[in-house]
């Protein structure tokens, strides 16, 4: 049974993990923020306390107008409650870094109080070493191992008066608790602002007077800084120290007086002795001087006589020499003219020779041409002769061949005749035979024709015929052979004929060649003739040349003889010259020796004179010196006596930590966060608690059927309620735990880390869990959420089971107010009507959402507004109210001349020039109003109230009405008026030097930084019964920038009249640096507000959708598209967001105004309103979150199952 209930519990968580985590996260955020921001202020203080304790930071320090002695230290150490005492030396001087001059403070390394922490490098080991400010490394570009050389600030000041060393090697970087912020002190040298500190070994400082004594108090470290306990412990010791102060002051004064008087007496004695000694020395010197003067006048006379004799001798010798020289010069001139002539002759010869040379060359060339021509002609002749020979031979051969041929011809003709004769014989023989044959034939025919032919005869006749025929055949053959022989002979003849004709043509050819040869021979002959002529000409030229040459040679001989004569003349001249030179040299040496003798004598005389003069001068100066020295000594003694009379009685200042600006400022910063932490996270927490509370209530309400069922089954009320209570308890408890750990660890850490930009020495950031904030924040969260669950369970459980199991009557639809305004309602779209009606139907959701969204918008408005308020301060104060560029603090001892020098400087254009300036009196005073509390304010009395309007604007903050100073009332600034609780017409008391004066407030003027009381000079005079002594100058310096202001300030500080400067820009930048550290806080607030806005919107939308699931399912079934379904819901959400954002903007305005007032400190008033743009940003951011959440919801809407519509009403 118990199991089933447990199972139900865990399943509930599992199925509604969205809601569970939502509650858990909202609670975590709320708790984280509430506990985290609230713990930041104590954590900041704790962190600083831890650091200061670690470094043995002073609890008290003692300063004295005359410094502190070793005896003072001992006396302080003996005071009950003092733990450690440490005396410190300090010296402000310059260091050159390249061309830039840095103003450094040199301090003695502390021993037991304000201990250094070496963050880099090592500690000092000897007198030549130093450890430095981290700023010197970071900003000025020095490194460990670099050397710095100290330059004394005053022109006449000697470094060796103060320090034993002048150059130091940087061996480390030291963090000093005295300077745990990045802001450095002001100083009276250089730019008026020290750039960094440097720690030196204590023995480097020569003085045995300490500039300050630092003290720690027993038991103070155990108390937390800034706490009342701490103040109480320290105040006790402070009082005791103040008790011994008068005794120590007297001791110091007497000590100084005794020492000084002894010294003065000593000096007087010394002076008297010195006077007597000086006088006797002076008398001796005067006697010696007179002796010397006599000696000198004797010597001068002797010298003058000798000089006259010497000058006569020299003049004679010089005349002789000059006549010899004239002769020589004449001879020289002659030689020169002869030499010139000789030179001309030589030149002519050379020209003639050149001509001859040219002609001879031409001739040689021509000869060469002739030779070549001759050679060519001879070669031609030879060829021709050879040609003739060949021709003749050919002709002979031809003739012999012709003869042979003719012989052959004759023999052939004979053979032909023979043959022709034989032919004739043969033909006769043939003819005979042919006749015989015919005859025989006839016989035969006759024989044959007889009746009885005689055969024998016929046969015989036949035989005879055959024999004849045979003979005939033989003869024919012979005849043929003969004919052949004849034709052969004819062929031979033809051949011979051809040979003969060839020979004839050969002959003709030969004849032609012969003719040619002959013509060539004729040409050659002509050539030969020409050559012969040329030869003749050549020979003539050659002989001409020869004669020319001979002429030249004779002329050359003439010239040579002339030259020889000339040389002889020259030699004679030279010997003459040598003689004269010799004479001159002799004269010179004689003169020189004489001059030297004279000079020596003169020098001796001059020396003697100057010696005498020196002696006189010495005497005079010695006398004067002695007198001056005596006068000085007398004056010194007088001065010392005067000074001693002027020595103020020393005054001790016993100061606690509250006199340290950084320490106080840090507390203000912490308190500022604390002030933000009072309201802002509470609003945040309230929104978170309310949302988770609603969520729980809704959860219980939605399960009334289940509750009824369980109740009907007989479960006890507790058993039923337990599920919801545990659900709420576990979610809120886990959320709280996460929130308080994360919040208290993370938020303070982030904020303190951001502040470390200003306070770099906070090495260890402490963020312990703060029991008080943890328990209150998580307790509130758990009680809220669990209580809500219990309460709603209780409400449900009162009802009977039957009632519970019946579905609760749905909230009735009702006409809303708007419907009665017919003209609006009727003009609205149907869907808008539905949306509007839905909004007013779910009133709880309506107000919850408006509150949630509005809360977030308000937080964002505040976060943006915080930035506006802070960053606006510098703008308003320095752009709108304080118009001047620079403030000069005047030296109290400045006289008229000093002041004129200053005005001159300001009026002069030395790169920068003061446009306008005014004098004023400004002093810090304590001011009291109606109450007991007094506040510090600057009483400001301008020289001319009319002119001052240009410098500082006095006006009403809201209306901008300008206020003028009058002679009856003062104008005070707004914050001061608020603190004092006074308004126009009230009286306030200003206290100067323990004298109270009452003045009437005339106006209350806009102002944001510090407090001021403005008073006219006339009123000042009537109030304080004395004319105001001007101690400040405010000036307009056009073109002043952060770069050039340093050198300008340095020049101003060099003037006697100026003891301090500050530029408005510098003050402004310092101020902005401090306030900008709030930027990270703003960012945290913004991020947190954003996260809250997101979770709240998500959660509320989640509830909305879960509760209206049935309605949305029905709409889906009706056929609405997904987008239309979403629009149905979105329309309401958009309306809710608009209303919520507007409400939030209004709420944010008041939240901002409230918190900003509580964040303020005494000396600052923030801008009271946020910029319009901040509201716009806040509203835009709210919408962005809203849109984003709605976009996420779109997917949830899509997932709604239509089947839901079929289920019964729960």
């Amino acid at each position, binding site marked *: 049974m118990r199991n089933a209930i447990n199972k139900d519990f865990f399943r509930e968580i599992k199925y509604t993990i969205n809601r569970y985590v939502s509650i858990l996260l909202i609670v975590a955020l709320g708790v984280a923020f509430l506990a985290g921001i609230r713990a930041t202020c104590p954590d900041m203080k704790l962190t600083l306390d831890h650091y200061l304790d670690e470094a043995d930071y002073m609890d008290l320090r003692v300063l004295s107008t005359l410094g502190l002695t070793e005896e003072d230290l001992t006396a302080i150490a003996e005071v009950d409650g003092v733990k450690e005492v440490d005396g410190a030396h300090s010296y402000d001087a310059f260091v050159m870094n390249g061309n830039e001059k840095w103003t450094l403070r040199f301090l003695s390394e502390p021993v037991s109080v304000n201990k250094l922490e070496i963050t880099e490098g090592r500690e000092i080991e000897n007198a030549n070493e130093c450890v430095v400010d981290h700023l010197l490394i970071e900003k000025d570009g020095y490194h460990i191992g670099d050397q710095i050389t100290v330059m004394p600030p005053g022109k006449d000041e000697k470094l060796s008066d103060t320090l034993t060393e002048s150059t130091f090697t940087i061996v480390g970087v030291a963090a000093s608790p005295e300077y745990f912020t990045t802001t450095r002190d002001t100083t009276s040298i250089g730019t008026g602002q020290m750039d960094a500190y440097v720690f030196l070994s204590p023995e480097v400082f020569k003085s045995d007077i300490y500039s300050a004594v630092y003290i720690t108090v027993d038991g103070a470290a155990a108390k937390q800084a800034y706490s009342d306990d701490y103040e109480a412990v320290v105040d006790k010791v402070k009082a005791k120290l103040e008790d011994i102060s008068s005794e120590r002051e007297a001791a110091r004064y007497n000590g100084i007086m005794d020492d000084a008087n002894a010294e003065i007496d000593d000096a007087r004695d010394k002076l008297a002795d010195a006077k007597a000694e000086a006088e006797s020395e002076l008398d001796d010197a005067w006697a010696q001087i007179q002796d010397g003067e006599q000696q000198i006048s004797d010597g001068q006379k002797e010298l003058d006589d000798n000089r006259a004799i010497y000058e006569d001798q020299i003049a004679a010798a010089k005349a002789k020499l000059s006549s010899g020289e004239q002769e020589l010069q004449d001879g020289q001139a002659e030689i020169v003219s002869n030499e010139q002539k000789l030179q001309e002759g030589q030149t002519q010869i050379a020209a003639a020779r050149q001509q001859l040379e040219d002609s001879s060359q031409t001739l040689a060339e021509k000869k060469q041409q002739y030779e070549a021509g001759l050679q060519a002609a001879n070669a031609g002749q030879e060829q021709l002769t050879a040609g003739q020979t060949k021709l003749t031979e050919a002709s002979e051969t031809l003739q012999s061949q012709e003869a042979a041929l003719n012989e052959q011809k004759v023999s052939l003709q004979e053979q032909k005749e023979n043959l022709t004769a034989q032919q004739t014989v043969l033909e006769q023989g043939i003819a005979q035979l042919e006749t015989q044959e015919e005859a025989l034939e006839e016989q035969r025919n006759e024989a044959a024709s007889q009746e009885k032919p005689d055969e024998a005869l016929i046969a015989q006749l036949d035989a005879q015929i055959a024999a004849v025929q045979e003979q005939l055949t033989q003869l024919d053959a012979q005849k043929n052979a003969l004919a052949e022989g004849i034709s052969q002979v004819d062929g031979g003849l033809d051949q011979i004929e051809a040979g003969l004709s060839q020979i004839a043509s050969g002959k003709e050819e030969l004849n032609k060649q012969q003719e040619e040869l002959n013509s060539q021979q004729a040409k050659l002959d002509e050539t030969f003739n020409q050559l012969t002529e040329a030869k003749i000409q050549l020979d003539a030229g050659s002989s001409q040349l020869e004669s020319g040459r001979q002429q030249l040679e004779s002329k050359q001989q003439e010239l040579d003889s002339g030259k020889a004569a000339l040389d002889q003349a020259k030699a004679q001249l030279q010997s003459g010259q040598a003689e004269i030179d010799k004479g001159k040299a002799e004269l010179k040496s004689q003169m020189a020796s004489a001059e030297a003798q004279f000079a020596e004598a003169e020098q001796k005389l001059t020396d003697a004179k100057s010696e005498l003069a020196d002696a006189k001068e010495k005497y005079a100066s010695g006398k004067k010196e002695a007198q001056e020295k005596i006068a000085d000594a007398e004056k010194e003694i007088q001065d010392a006596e005067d000074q001693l009379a002027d020595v103020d009685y020393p005054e001790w200042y016993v100061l606690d930590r509250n006199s340290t600006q950084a320490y106080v400022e840090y507390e203000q910063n912490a308190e500022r966060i604390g002030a933000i932490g009072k309201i802002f996270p509470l609003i945040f927490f309230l929104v978170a608690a309310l949302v988770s509370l609603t969520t729980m209530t809704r959860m219980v309400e939605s399960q009334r059927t289940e509750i009824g069922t369980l109740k009907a089954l007989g479960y006890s009320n507790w058993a039923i309620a337990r599920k919801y209570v545990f659900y709420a308890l576990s979610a809120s408890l886990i959320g709280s735990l996460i929130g308080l750990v994360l919040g208290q660890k993370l938020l303070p850490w982030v904020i303190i880390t951001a502040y470390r930009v200003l306070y770099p020495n906070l090495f260890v950031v402490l963020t312990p869990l703060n029991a008080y904030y943890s328990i209150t924040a998580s307790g509130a969260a758990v009680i809220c959420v669990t209580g809500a669950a219990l309460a709603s369970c209780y409400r449900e459980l009162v009802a009977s089971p039957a009632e519970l199991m019946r579905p609760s009557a749905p909230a009735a639809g009702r006409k809303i107010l708007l419907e009665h305004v017919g003209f609006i309602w009727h003009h609205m779209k149907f869907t808008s009507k539905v949306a509007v009606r*839905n909004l007013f139907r779910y009133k709880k959701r309506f107000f919850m959402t408006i509150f949630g969204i509005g809360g977030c918008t308000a937080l964002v408005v505040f976060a943006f507004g915080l930035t506006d308020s802070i960053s606006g301060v510098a703008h308003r104060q320095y752009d709108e109210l304080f118009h001047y560029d620079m403030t000069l603090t005047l030296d109290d001892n400045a006289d008229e001349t000093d002041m004129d020098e200053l005005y001159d400087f300001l009026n002069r254009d030395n790169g920068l020039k003061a446009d306008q300036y005014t004098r004023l009196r400004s002093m810090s005073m304590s001011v009291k109003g109606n109450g007991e509390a007094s506040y510090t304010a600057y009483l400001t009395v301008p020289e001319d109230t009319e002119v001052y309007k240009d410098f500082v604007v006095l006006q009403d903050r809201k209306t901008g009405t300008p206020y003028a100073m009058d002679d009856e009332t003062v104008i005070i600034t707004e914050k001061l008026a608020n603190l004092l609780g006074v308004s126009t017409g009230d009286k306030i008391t200003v206290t100067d030097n323990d004298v109270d004066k009452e003045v009437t407030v005339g106006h209350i003027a806009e102002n944001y930084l510090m407090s001021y009381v403005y008073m006219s000079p006339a009123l000042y005079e009537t109030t304080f019964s004395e004319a105001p002594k001007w101690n400040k100058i405010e000036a307009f310096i056009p073109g002043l920038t952060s770069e050039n202001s340093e050198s300008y300030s340095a020049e101003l500080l060099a003037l006697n009249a100026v003891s301090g400067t500050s530029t408005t820009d510098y003050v402004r930048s310092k101020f902005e640096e401090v306030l900008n550290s709030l930027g990270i806080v703003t960012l945290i607030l913004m991020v947190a507000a954003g996260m809250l806005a997101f979770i709240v919107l998500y959660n509320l939308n989640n509830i909305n959708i879960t509760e209206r699931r049935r309605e949305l399912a029905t709409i889906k079934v*009706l056929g609405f598209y997904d987008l239309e379904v979403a629009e149905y819901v979105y329309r309401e959400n958009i309306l809710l967001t608009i209303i919520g954002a507007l409400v939030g903007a209004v709420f944010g305005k008041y939240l901002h105004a409230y918190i900003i007032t509580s964040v303020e400190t005494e000396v600052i008033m923030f801008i009271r309103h946020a910029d319009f743009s901040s509201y716009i940003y806040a509203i835009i951011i709210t919408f962005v979150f809203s849109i984003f959440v709605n976009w996420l919801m779109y997917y949830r809407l899509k997932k709604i199952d*239509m089947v839901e*519509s*079929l289920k019964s009403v729960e």
Partner: protein
Amino acid sequence: MSEFVVMENVKKTYKMGEVMIHAVDGVDMEIHKGEFAVIVGPSGAGKTTVLNMLGGMDSVTSGKVIVDGRDISRYSSRQLTKYRRDDIGFVFQFYNLIQNLNALENVELALQISKHPLDAKEVLKDVGLEDRMYNFPSQLSGGEQQRVAIARALAKNPKLLLCDEPTGALDYQTGKAILKLLQDTCHKHGMTVIVITHNLAIAPMADRVIQIKNGRVSEMTVNPDPRPVETIEW
């Protein structure tokens, strides 16, 4: 008369972890245009699943659902929305009126998205709520609320009117009156009406009775002579 609604072997399977549940396991049925059809069956038989699939509220695992010639079982979710918007009128057991809107506005809400809507006032007059138009749901009785719901469904001028246990939350007399209104609507306007009920007693008034058991159609009868509601008692 043609077959206006056809289901062919329609199955719907839910997967619950490892187990497959066959809510509808092969339903075959047909309903003609202008018919007053009653789907009856015991609880868990799959009636509502069938209705969901017919109404385009749930997808079909397999099989075909044809309405007026179009197979809606293949429709995308957007097409199904359009189908519900234009073709279907739905009457719920618990009326599902928007509590924050009066009777007329509830009807108008449906008309906002309808293509060919009827006049809201006319329809309300038809269902007999002429005098209660400006009343909110909480000011109306159950029967009146159901009449508003029917008016809302009819005003869209749908092709098919689906009613899920329309009398389930009503008393006997009122239930009868509602059924009569539905029957009259069917007969006068020729509207196809499908009523899902577990009450077998009202079967005689229907033109067609479809009985479902264990995810299947166990019996489908056409009643040639449906009786008027007044004559039925249960």
